[in-house]
């Protein structure tokens, strides 16, 4: 019990200081920070209407490259942690009994629509809200839906690795092209076109599509790895 009491004491101290610090920050008040520059510049320079995407992909593109690597490492790390040598003659059975008919029919209808929505979200990343991460996640939920409702729905790891690597290489090589052209890494070397039309924003659109594919394949891979290794009856053997 003393542990709980001690933890609560610490929490109250830390909480007091957090509240004290954050309530000194005025809420909802315009401060002069880097954000205003981005708001003015992103429609003018990059012709990108969604300034958050502009920041995420171009102004702070290095973060996103790091971000994509974190996801890639999480997938690899997960694979190495959950890795188990394949004993001979072992079937990958995901769920004990097939899910009910309603889910199967529903998912048949929903699956293409979710994929479409996902695709729309990350293709129009620089116009409407959303982008590579959100689109990829939506597609991952689509494949998740199929994985749950159908026992024999199998996601081929080979395909996932291919998409993942190619998308990553596209992203990195787009960066390198900027460097090769003598300017800087991840430079926006394509013409930026008009505001609010599909091809505006130079390489931002392409990068976000690559990120979208990568995130989609990686998240599906993550879920599949975790789902695959938990055969209920094979749990106790090691």
């Amino acid at each position, binding site marked *: 019990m003393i542990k709980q009491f001690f933890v609560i004491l610490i929490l109250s101290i830390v909480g007091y*200081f*957090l509240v*004290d*610090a*954050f309530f*000194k*920050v005025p809420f909802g008040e315009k*401060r*002069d*920070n*880097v954000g205003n*520059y*981005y708001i003015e*510049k992103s429609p003018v320079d990059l012709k990108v209407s969604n300034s958050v995407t502009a920041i995420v992909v*171009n*102004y*702070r*593109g*290095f*973060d996103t*490259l*790091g*971000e994509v*690597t*974190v996801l*890639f*490492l*999480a997938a*690899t*790390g*997960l*694979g*190495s*942690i959950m*890795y188990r*040598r394949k004993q001979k003659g072992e079937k990958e059975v995901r769920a004990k009994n097939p899910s009910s008919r309603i889910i199967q029919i529903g998912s048949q209808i929903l699956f293409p629509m979710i994929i479409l929505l996902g695709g729309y979200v990350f293709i129009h990343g620089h116009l409407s809200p959303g982008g590579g991460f959100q689109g990829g996640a939506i597609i991952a939920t689509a494949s998740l839906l199929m994985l749950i409702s159908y026992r024999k729905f199998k996601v081929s790891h*080979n395909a996932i*690795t*291919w998409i*993942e*690597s190619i998308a*990553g*290489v596209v992203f*990195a*090589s787009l*960066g*390198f092209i*900027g*460097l*090769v052209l*003598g*300017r*800087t*890494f*991840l*430079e*926006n070397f394509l013409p930026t076109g008009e505001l609010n039309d599909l091809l505006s924003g130079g390489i931002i659109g392409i990068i976000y599509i690559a990120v979208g594919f990568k995130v989609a394949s990686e998240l599906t891979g993550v879920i599949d790895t975790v789902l695959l290794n938990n055969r209920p009856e094979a749990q106790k053997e090691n």
Partner: protein
Amino acid sequence: MVISPVQYIAIPLMAAFLIPLFGKLNKDLARIIPGLVLLYLSYISVVLMNQIISSNTIIVEIIAGWRPPWGINLVFSPLTGFLASMFSMLGFVIWMYTYNFKPEVDNAQKQKFYVLFMMLITGATGIVLTGDIFNLFVFLEITAISAYSLTAFYRERDGAEAAFKYLLIGSFSSTLILLAILLLYTQVGTLNMAEIALKMPGVDPFMKGVILILFFVGFGIESELFPLNGWSPDVYTQAPGPIGAIFAGMVVKAGIYGLVRVVFTLFDVKEILPLLVIIGMITMAVAEVIALRQGKLKRMLAYSSIGQMGLVAVAFGIGTHDSVFAAIFLMFNHAIIKGMLFLSGTYLVYNSTEKTLDDVDGIGKHLPFTSFLFALGALAIVGMPPFAGFWSKLYLLMAAADVRLMTVIAIILVVSVIEIVYYFRVIHRIYFRERISTIELKIPSFNAKLAMFILAIIIVAVGVYPDLISGFIERATTDLLDKQSYIQSVLSVGLK
């Protein structure tokens, strides 16, 4: 392609994405790529280092074409350059060691191992090179995630337990750092370190204090200061051998670099330095004392590595020019010597599960080369004269004497006596005991021996003639302490 600091990070990332593909073509290509990448990085380190030394300027590379306060930039200054090139060269040597380290691991795992191995080094190099605080956080996360997965790599050990503890405390560290970055953004309005340092005097003291404490604890976890280093002994023991060397050599160094960059460049608050000295001394005392009572070899090396990090923290805490010089020299020495101790130590206790000191008895006759290098490393880390450790400890003591910190000198020396006792105890057991344990020994492969031998050569070379390194370290010290030139050169890039 023009040689620029961004390649430190871009090329390994590209290689990491490609390794799964190449893995499909033929199996051991996945093992060769990290070596090639690290070799290339060492090459560009040499080119860049003599570029900044000959022209006496700092290379500031902007990314995505936007000038610093708005875009992210990399800074290749004498300090960050020295650390980045040390990381890549040490990484290449350790890669040579791991080339055929554990053949029985099957291929899918080995491929993942090498991806994570390379990303660990790139993360550490990224932390050191970046000039943007949120980018520092992202690279910290890359290092952390690959560290968690690598710690839990072997199935037969308690890797999962160590990794979970590290993850639990590591996520606390990233939460605190994120909080600090957020508060900093509200006060200063920018994420670029140079800009922050410029605007820092305007921040009100209470907020500055809270932000500094959050950063201190956040980076303190990464650099193994006393109350925050619960995770490190377990992680060192459970991670594969070479990964332990990378932890000691790079990950912890990047952690303490982050702390130092925040304290020395971002903030101009000098009150935190005495705290750093006190915490450093407590870390040193506690870690060395526990190492004395340790029964297991790798856990002993882990605690001794924490003790050395405490020493580095004390050196940075004193804050004068000489003490920072001693601190960077200590960091360099510790990375090389502790790296070699871990590399050779792994082969001493290769097949034993419990890895206790009894398995090491009388191994001198069976593994003469490895145990000789281990003994050399032990003598060096303790600070015996003909080796590198002596000079760094001496410079630190001289710096402490200049500012009349007698208790600091006394405690450092008492701790060194403790260190001598438990390292000589191990050397004694290696050479002067009969071998009774029946664990069959693994003879290190040729490239492992070569890797260890290179490290030994560096130790002796620096020990006999310290001026090899002190030139670089002198520049790194002036670069760290001279805040104005850092701000001026970063903010003025691309203006002309």
